[in-house]
């Protein structure tokens, strides 16, 4: 596979995953780009699925190593949107901001490893792939995922109730 097809295939889902993981769109793009640079620099080859796992694992580790959750730009922007103009109606914008806030609150309520597991699962990875990327036993993934899903759903429900 050439540079373009690898990039086109992996960059968008990787950014999405990193964005969900960090809550910061810019950091997400940085980390996705850094992961891809490393993939090409180290000439990582293999199946498509193998490359995908490698990229997500690398990105997860970069987030763990480098990213401090408290400097969360999206959250700042959500709280202080300094240019609140645009084609959308204020109601839709508000609903969207609310949905984002709920999702963020639910993710923030999870332990970092549970968050990684949940987000990798919802990025379409199998339990085996998740185990390989997150350094947990494959047999534990189900248990950890169940806990993460329960907690996530609880926080979203709770937040929805408060909003009404």
């Amino acid at each position, binding site marked *: 596979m050439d540079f373009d097809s690898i990039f086109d295939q992996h960059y968008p889902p990787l950014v999405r995953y990193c*964005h969900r993981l960090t809550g910061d769109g810019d950091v997400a793009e940085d980390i996705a780009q850094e992961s891809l640079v490393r993939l090409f620099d180290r000439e990582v080859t293999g199946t498509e699925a193998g490359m995908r796992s490698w990229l997500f694992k690398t990105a997860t580790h970069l987030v763990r*190593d480098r990213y401090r959750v408290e400097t969360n730009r999206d959250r700042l922007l959500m709280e202080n949107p300094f*240019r609140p103009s645009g084609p959308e109606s204020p109601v839709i914008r508000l609903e969207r901001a609310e949905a984002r806030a709920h999702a963020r609150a639910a993710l923030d309520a999870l332990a970092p490893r549970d968050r990684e597991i949940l987000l990798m699962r919802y990025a379409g990875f*199998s339990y085996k792939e998740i185990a390989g990327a997150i350094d947990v036993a494959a047999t534990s993934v*189900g248990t950890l995922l169940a806990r993460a*899903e329960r907690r996530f759903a609880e926080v*979203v429900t709770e937040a929805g109730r408060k909003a009404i």
Partner: protein
Amino acid sequence: MKHLDEATMLAIRDGADASAEAREHLGGCATCAAALEGTRRRAESIAETLSALDRPLEPTAAKAGVRARVGTRSPRTSSRWSGWHLGRAAALVLLTAGAATALPGSPLRSILLPDSAEETTATEAELLDAPVTPSSAEPGLVDAGIQVGLPEGVVEVVVRGADPGTEVLVEWSDLAAARVTAPPGSRFTYSAGRIELDAARGEIRVVFPRGADQISLEVDGRSYMSGSPSEVEVTGPAVERDDGSVRFRVDDS
């Protein structure tokens, strides 16, 4: 009868390994079948909630940036001013809601990029071809930004046209790049290790990499801060300062 635990249920839902007995139990147990259905609904709802966090992506500039960086990494040198010889540094554009232009052929470029002009010119041609339209359906939440990588050390940020009262927030990051974001309509000019900004009205955000050897920030001809990240000298009108950031408010002087 012992019902299935949730982890087993999820393993079945997600097509992971589950024992034959578990599958058999599920076939004959209405309680577990209903619980499994519940976990499916929960999964749909979680997927939908998570999608609220996603935003549209314009990967053209990112692709050019990654292409430019591949194979360019050299070991960091500790020499203080080695950053002036950014032999194979690359620049990349991140969010581009404003206009971004490089400085082809300027003296600055030839100082910063003494021995890789060809390589970098090709890259910048691609960068300039990248669309500069707002990349998000929510323009209110997206400002314009530019980022330059610095495989080795020096980064300079120059801001022009900041009205009195404009806030300039400087933060530190562990990433190996410097970044400036500003409101839509701002104009960026950049080369390796240097970002120039003609600012539109609104808050300006500067992120310097902690790993830089030397950083500097100049606003309308006045030095706001300079030095190494560990011993930075703040000379601008700072209104707030802590370990991770400095906030300036541009004054009349």
